[in-house]
């Protein structure tokens, strides 16, 4: 799965998520990726989210909407993602990751799987990583 979340200078947000699914999936099986509130969610009043991981668990957890809802309460982006992933793990035993931006320009990424490649550009710097805790910054 791949995804993007973006916020512009005016605070407009968008997200997109795309996937080939899981190996050996049953023909016709659909995961979270095309489901609003599961695989992605965007609302200028809050921000934008794209998720990845076990599709069935993400759908049950409404993960993208869950994260957005926590952001709406005033929590920071990283805390919101952690809260969503923790909920999914504790209630459904599901694992995954998410990226998110707030409409104020805050950004975050978290994952409960062994790895998740991610990258973002902000203020002339390229940030990226793949391993837990890894966060490399390059000047552009």
């Amino acid at each position, binding site marked *: 799965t791949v995804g993007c979340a973006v916020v*512009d200078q005016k605070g407009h*947000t968008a997200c997109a998520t795309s996937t080939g699914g899981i190996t050996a999936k049953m023909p016709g099986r659909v995961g979270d990726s095309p489901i609003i509130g599961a695989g992605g969610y965007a609302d200028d009043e809050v921000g934008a989210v794209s998720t990845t991981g076990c599709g069935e668990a993400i759908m049950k957890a409404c993960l993208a909407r869950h994260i957005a809802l926590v952001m709406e309460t005033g929590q920071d982006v990283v805390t919101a993602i952690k809260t969503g992933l923790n909920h999914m793990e504790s209630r459904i035993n599901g694992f995954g990751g998410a990226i998110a931006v707030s409409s104020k320009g805050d950004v975050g990424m978290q994952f409960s799987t062994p790895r998740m490649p991610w990258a973002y550009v902000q203020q002339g710097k390229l940030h990226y990583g793949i391993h837990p805790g890894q966060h490399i910054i390059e000047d552009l």
Partner: protein
Amino acid sequence: VEPVVIVHGGAWAVPEILWDKSVAGVKTAALHGYQVLKDGGSVVDVAEAAVISLEDNPVFDAGTGSVLTFDEQVEMDAIIMNGATMQAGAVAAIRNIPNPVKVARLIMEKTPHVMLAGEGANKFASEYGINEVDKDLLITPYAKEELAEYKKYTNTVYCLFNKTDHANPVGHD
């Protein structure tokens, strides 16, 4: 607001052989998306462009590089959402299209619907000049190997998602 474009390439037990290529792919996609923004593109343009960059990269499980169904087909899902209007478009189980996110955007912008699935999604895409390609153009040797490995050990289809590095990586949504 300080603009930001963030991308991911999927959360799973990415094997070491894919680490460098995965990181390179997400860096390229983030930079590409940011360039679209700098060039005056809308946030929807940016989200679509960044995801197309990732779909076109065979390292990632989307578009070219998608994993295979049990009967060795390529079925893909995608969504795009505009936070200003809360309009959204999605495709589910669309077959043999290099960039499903493009079709999702067309559904968002050209129809009153949110999602088209399967044959209907392919038919709709075709009406906008997005035709199916030979599935072999989307299937990588890695995807074939992964399916073969899976079939060697099990014929049960379920979501094998494990937190440990020893998990059998079977792709991810």
